[in-house]
């Protein structure tokens, strides 16, 4: 038997992350889609509601949050689709590393490529709707916890609906109810910041939920994908 260079968990995670980021870079046209979608939707609001400064200021936080979450939903159902199609997912499940960890890396890569650009552009969108500068830190911080939460919850649902046809709509119907608490806490933080009240408590709730899902979601994801392939 030839000598072996074993794969450690670290090299496997690095390989996974590198591959997905490289793939995203090769298809970088797709990366711009959610961002453009968010820009266009946000621009529609002043047209529909009229240029009333006080009104726009009041709805700015909520509009930006909901737009970003919907934009993420657009890119979500592609998370495992191509891997199932070309057999990469089988290879991933056959690797000696824990599948949950590798899938966690995939989710991280997905968040970096879809949610991070949206978080970067969110203050600009909010500025277009005249959100006061004082509320910006609350908005960005809320998004920093709300978007990975959504990526993780979404990944579990994508894994559950993997293999079904026309899973996009089903996914939206399943995920949007789960978004309700996320939106309530995130919007609550932004509204509190706008009124000059302490806004850290709702963010802390989001952070707690994020920590819970970051542990549990990859495990659920691995189990769901195993079932999807076991048929």
């Amino acid at each position, binding site marked *: *038997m*030839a*000598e*072996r*260079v*074993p*794969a450690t968990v670290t*090299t*496997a995670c*690095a*390989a*996974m992350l*590198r*591959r997905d980021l*490289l*793939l995203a870079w*090769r*298809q970088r046209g797709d990366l711009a889609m959610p961002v453009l979608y968010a820009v266009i939707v946000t621009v529609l609001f002043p047209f529909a509601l009229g240029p009333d400064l006080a009104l726009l200021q009041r709805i700015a936080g909520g509009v930006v949050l909901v737009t970003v979450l919907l934009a993420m939903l657009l890119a979500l159902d592609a998370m495992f689709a*191509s891997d199932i*199609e*070309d*057999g*990469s997912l*089988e*290879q*991933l*499940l*056959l*690797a*000696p*590393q824990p599948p949950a960890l*590798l899938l966690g890396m995939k989710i991280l890569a997905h968040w970096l490529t879809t949610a991070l650009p949206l978080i970067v552009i969110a203050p600009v969108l909010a500025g277009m709707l005249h959100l006061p500068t004082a509320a910006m830190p609350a908005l960005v911080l809320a998004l920093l916890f709300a978007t990975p939460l959504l990526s993780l919850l979404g990944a579990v649902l994508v894994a559950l609906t993997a293999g079904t046809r026309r899973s996009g709509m089903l996914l939206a119907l399943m995920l949007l109810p789960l978004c309700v608490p996320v939106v309530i806490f995130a919007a609550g933080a932004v509204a509190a910041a706008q009124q000059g009240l302490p806004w850290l408590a709702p963010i802390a709730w989001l952070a707690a939920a994020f920590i819970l899902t970051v542990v549990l979601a990859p495990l659920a994801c691995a189990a769901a994908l195993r079932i999807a*392939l*076991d*048929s």
Partner: protein
Amino acid sequence: MEAMTAVCATPLLQARQLTFHRGDEPVFAPLDFVLHTGELLLIEGDNGSGKTTLLRVLAGLLHVSAGTLHWRGAPWQRDAVAGDLVFLGHQLGQKLDLSPRENLAFATGLHGQRAEPSITDALMRVGLSGYEDEPVRRLSAGQKKRAALARLPLLPATLWLLDEPYANLDRHGIALVDRLLESHLTGGGAALVSSHSTVNFHGGEPQRIRLHG
């Protein structure tokens, strides 16, 4: 020395009355076989006779419905087997937007790599010199297959599960698969190979099982 023989005598893979049910229907009749290191097992059968299903069961992608499966003398367990097995299915597991080299680098990152060959050597061995950095999307069906075959000599696995490795390959490609198998078997590996046509394997007489759907 006696300990050595005892280790060698333990079969790598042993199936007793192994079946897989889809719904209530068995996909193939109960199977018995023993595979030692250095041995090749050919799975023959017509389309739909369950060759792919059997290989997926052995890889652990599907659950055994009835019967037992032993790996190196102990009941089959994912943690013991994963990493010591390569599965090459109909879906090649290649990312079309990446080059063969990048695909192999990912595979070795996940599964580990033998001390030799290097990725470049492995690609040369399967006849893809000059295509190392071309996106897999631009390769022909046979070249894609060869790019996937390059995984075999690279990864440190004892057992190869090859589903129709000869499909899409020209005469030289078929000889290439035979060469890869031969060097794997003489190096102390073992392989299960499925094929719907008769295979002329030159490196000794392999075991054969015939599946009936």
